[in-house]
């Protein structure tokens, strides 16, 4: 569902461009709104959320899709935790559909998906592992790297039970906005994948902005 935001860039309290292959790990306070913008189109922002009070409570793809009865995320979706609590609301979305089934690329899964020789190519899960290592104040490790959202990715399920990776329906400047219902740690990997036609083999920057 396409819902545009009334928020003005001039009023944002924070704004940062994240190059492809980098991570972004920050705390968002309850009531604050986060906008992720796909600056050049067809990029994937692989995103995880954790309760800032107890990172053992985190975004759960299963709880989210089961409770809304639908596998796609868009405006109106409530992101649910593994304890069944609402964490954030998607309040605006100019892309229309985001994936939460396909997970994040890893060096190991790249060997399976693409070729055994691709084992040393940069991947989202490497970015996340560096993020948790460099941000030990959050007390996280590999066991906290879980099943994520792929903002701007289009992964349709067929009636026969197939999973397809379609060309992105995103485009330059498309964005998604989320308002936090609790204090959350946001962990984004701006996907470095060079083997997937979904991003035209060209990973590009995203922008992250926060409103009070």
């Amino acid at each position, binding site marked *: 569902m396409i819902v545009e935001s009334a928020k003005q860039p001039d009023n944002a309290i924070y704004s940062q461009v994240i190059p492809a292959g980098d991570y972004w790990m920050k705390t968002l306070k309850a009531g604050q709104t986060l906008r992720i913008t796909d600056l050049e189109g067809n990029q994937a922002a692989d995103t995880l959320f954790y309760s800032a009070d107890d990172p053992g409570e985190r975004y759960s793809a299963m709880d989210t899709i089961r409770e809304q009865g639908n596998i796609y995320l868009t405006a109106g979706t409530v992101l649910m935790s593994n304890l069944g609590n609402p964490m954030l609301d998607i309040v605006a979305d100019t892309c229309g559909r985001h994936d939460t089934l*396909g997970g994040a690329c890893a060096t190991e*899964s790249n060997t399976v998906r693409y*070729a055994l020789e691709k084992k040393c190519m940069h991947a989202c*899960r490497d970015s996340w592992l560096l993020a948790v290592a460099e941000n030990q104040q959050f007390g996280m490790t590999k066991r906290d790297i879980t*099943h994520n959202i792929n903002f701007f990715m289009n992964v349709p*399920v067929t009636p026969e039970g*197939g999973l397809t*990776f379609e060309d992105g329906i995103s485009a330059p400047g498309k964005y998604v906005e989320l308002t936090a219902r609790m204090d959350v740690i946001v962990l984004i990997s701006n996907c470095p994948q060079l083997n997937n036609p979904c991003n035209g083999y060209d990973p590009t920057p995203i922008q992250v902005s926060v409103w009070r």
Partner: protein
Amino acid sequence: MTNTTTLGEPLHSGDLPGGAHWSLRIGRGKTLRLTDLEGGANLGMLLYNPLDLLERYNAPDTLKCQHTFKLTKGHCLYSDMGRIFCSIVDDSFGWHDTVCGNLSKKMIQERWGEKTYQEYRNDWTLSGHDSFLVELAKYGLGRRDLAANINFFSKVVTDADGNLRLDDSAARPGAQVDLRFEMDTLVIFHSCPHPLCRAPQYPKKPVSYQIFTSPPVADDDICLNSREENRRGFANTRLYNGLAH
């Protein structure tokens, strides 16, 4: 409606009553056969590497490596490390879920009313979520280690708009699935109802399990050959087993 593969005499057999949990360590070269005795059971399952518990079943990698939403014969269940815990070598059920997670205590209270142990003893109503927590804790694992699980014998379909539905009509007494283990695996499982179950009563459906010695993996093996990706997954797993033993 049972599997047609012949596996000889089982090394071990066990039963899990409905609404219960258990765990097993199953070695490479063994096959686990699960049977839905009455039809309508749900068997939640998680998989871990007993030598490195940080290596665990990864539903997204399993789905995207094989371009599938459902799990059935020919599919492999992948770890987050690009290796195959086990292969689905036979399956008379045809469509197992791995995206809907678990029943929670809150859902039980809302749908059926909770039955406490004090009042109902073994007829109490356990949740899949709590069942996993108990079994995981036996190995030093906890809530942070609870990944997306498989729900065997539960068919969850989507429509063109992505709406999810549990297809109760798929239930068959005697339905079986055979999992051939390609590496040593810690198997955590429960028989609590599927989280989309809307039966009038909390269903208590038993599942039996048997463990066999696996026949050798043939060159024309259905799981090895179902996708190019799986040939690479098998290569990764063989490398790991070969270097580790």
